[in-house]
């Protein structure tokens, strides 16, 4: 389809504004992390760095527990993502495929999880975890993160399941595929974009979670990045270079995840299946 030139200009303009809004802070964070301290706090900020130093990274990795926090966060976020997917896929499929009394009501009810501010459930949750000995474990964070990611993940995956033409599943049943094989071999590849989206959502949610981690984790060695990092950057005086270097590094795993999963986001996976 040919677009009118004015329309094209408007579209590109819109994209440029949005990209600018999103990317400008990133630019200042990442370039700031390699600037000399004087340049970072200069009265007129420089868009293109005039100095170059790795001293902030050096200090961050050599003289703080940042690397340990990073590993903790990676473990927690990866495990949370895996648990979320492991539960949301069968649950989404069940909500889509099984007919049972109260299905619609239950399906709407699970979203109630988002009605409560996390601070409200924090205290009872702490008491419960204390009773079963989960306080100050990474497993506690994994459970909490998965619990909060699940309702949305189930909704999202159910919608993706619903887009698969029913005949494909019927054909697989006629071909003799047991339900779990049909799910794994036929249906999951077709909802790959949905799984990718849920994975990114669950990972980012867990990666950035602060409130639960700050309360449920007591020992410094088990702290994930957001909590641990908050301690590094200084209580009375902010070390801007350190902060920017830490923030830059913290973005990295998420960017890598997007790069890895992004290729799943291709439209028309079911193209050619029907009609």
């Amino acid at each position, binding site marked *: 389809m040919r677009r009118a030139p004015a329309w094209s200009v408007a579209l590109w303009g819109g994209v440029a504004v949005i990209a600018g809004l999103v990317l400008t802070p990133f630019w200042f964070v990442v370039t700031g992390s390699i600037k000399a301290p004087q340049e970072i706090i200069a009265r007129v900020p420089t868009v293109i760095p005039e100095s170059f130093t790795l001293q902030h990274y050096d200090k961050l990795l050599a003289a703080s527990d940042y690397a340990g926090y990073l590993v903790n966060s990676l473990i927690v976020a990866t495990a949370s993502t895996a648990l979320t997917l492991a539960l949301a896929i069968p649950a989404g499929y069940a909500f889509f495929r099984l007919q049972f009394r109260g299905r619609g009501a239950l399906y709407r009810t699970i979203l109630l999880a988002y009605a409560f501010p996390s601070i409200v459930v924090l205290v009872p949750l702490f008491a419960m975890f204390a009773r079963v000995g989960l306080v100050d474990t990474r497993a506690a964070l994994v459970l909490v993160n998965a619990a909060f990611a699940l309702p949305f993940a189930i909704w999202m995956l159910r919608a993706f399941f619903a887009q698969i033409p029913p005949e494909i599943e019927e054909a697989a049943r006629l071909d003799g595929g047991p339900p779990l094989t049909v799910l794994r071999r036929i249906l999951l590849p077709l909802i790959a974009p949905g799984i990718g989206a849920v994975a990114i959502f669950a990972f980012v949610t867990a990666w950035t979670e602060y409130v639960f981690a700050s309360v449920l984790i007591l020992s410094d060695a088990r702290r994930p990045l957001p909590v641990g990092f908050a301690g590094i950057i200084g209580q009375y005086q902010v070390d801007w270079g350190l902060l920017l270097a830490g923030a830059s590094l913290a973005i990295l795993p998420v960017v890598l995840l997007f790069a890895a999963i992004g290729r799943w986001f291709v439209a028309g*996976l079911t193209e*050619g299946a029907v*009609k």
Partner: protein
Amino acid sequence: MSEVELAAIAKSFGETEVIPPLDLRVPDGEFCVFVGPSGCGKSTLLRMIAGLEEPSAGQVRIGGRDVTREDPSDRGLAMVFQSYALYPHMTVAQNMEFGLEMAGMPREARRAEVEKAARLLKLDRFLDRKPRALSGGQRQRVAIGRAIVRQPGVFLFDEPLSNLDAELRVEMRLELARIHRQVGATMIYVTHDQVEAMTMADRIVVLREGRIEQQGPPERLYADPDTLFVAGFLGAPRMNLTPCAVTGCEGGRALVDVPALGITGLAVPLRDPAAPPPRSAILGLRPEAFAPAGQGRAATLKAEVVENTGAARYLYTATDRAIALVAEIPRGQSIGTGETLEVGVAAEDCLLFASEGPRL
């Protein structure tokens, strides 16, 4: 042995009865076509045979075995869907192989079967392609191939050609007939296209509102329909059905006056000479059954519309299809709109129906 037998099978969705109890036997190796207008229950019937729909009552038997409660995959059948339902992320070969893999066939044997079927369907060049890189006809052949490799006793087809263009449809029709000859399996084929039904079937089952209206070989259904519905459903253009008055009976024939043709006292043979016909009835006469002028009783038809299908030309006496009479114009005769055609009407070619539907 893959005879399919439905015994008092019925289906309701909630309060709505879609298929009242119905009996049907499809002998081993037969090409049986279910035909009927949309919503007549033909697809539901097929899906109950497949096991994709659970019957509300009755039994499905395949090869003498009661399979009513069995999983689709345990019934020894394969189904080709209207929408093909290929696995889009798999290649043609993987699509065809999946069922064999599920059946536990070793890889080498699977490959051999797939290649054999691919040759039969002229798909050998496309085995490594994904469905999206195929044309509609090729996709449909893959769907058929997926059914063939499993060597089922029964093939089920749910309007498999309705998404194809006209030429391809003819081609696939011939191909299916050839496959039926080659594999010799029982085939049950659902369509609303009466040309497909007429050309492919050993037996046609005409369904209407979930009931079997009539079943039998295509020729018999066409020439000797039991009801108005069957008479009107098979044949294109459809049979002329026009009201007539029965004035008397004579030697197993009813004497009828046909106002639309301007004929009185036409002696139409009755199916059951013993049963007295009602006073008013419907006369049926196929468009190609008009005799040349001079044979039988004379009638004059005025052309409101002349339709040329290429193979034949038809005269319509009105633009409203509900009241129009249609006649095939004899070859070599040219008729324009507004002109008249002299025809003959042979009583032997006419059929008589009660206005409620049954044949008289």
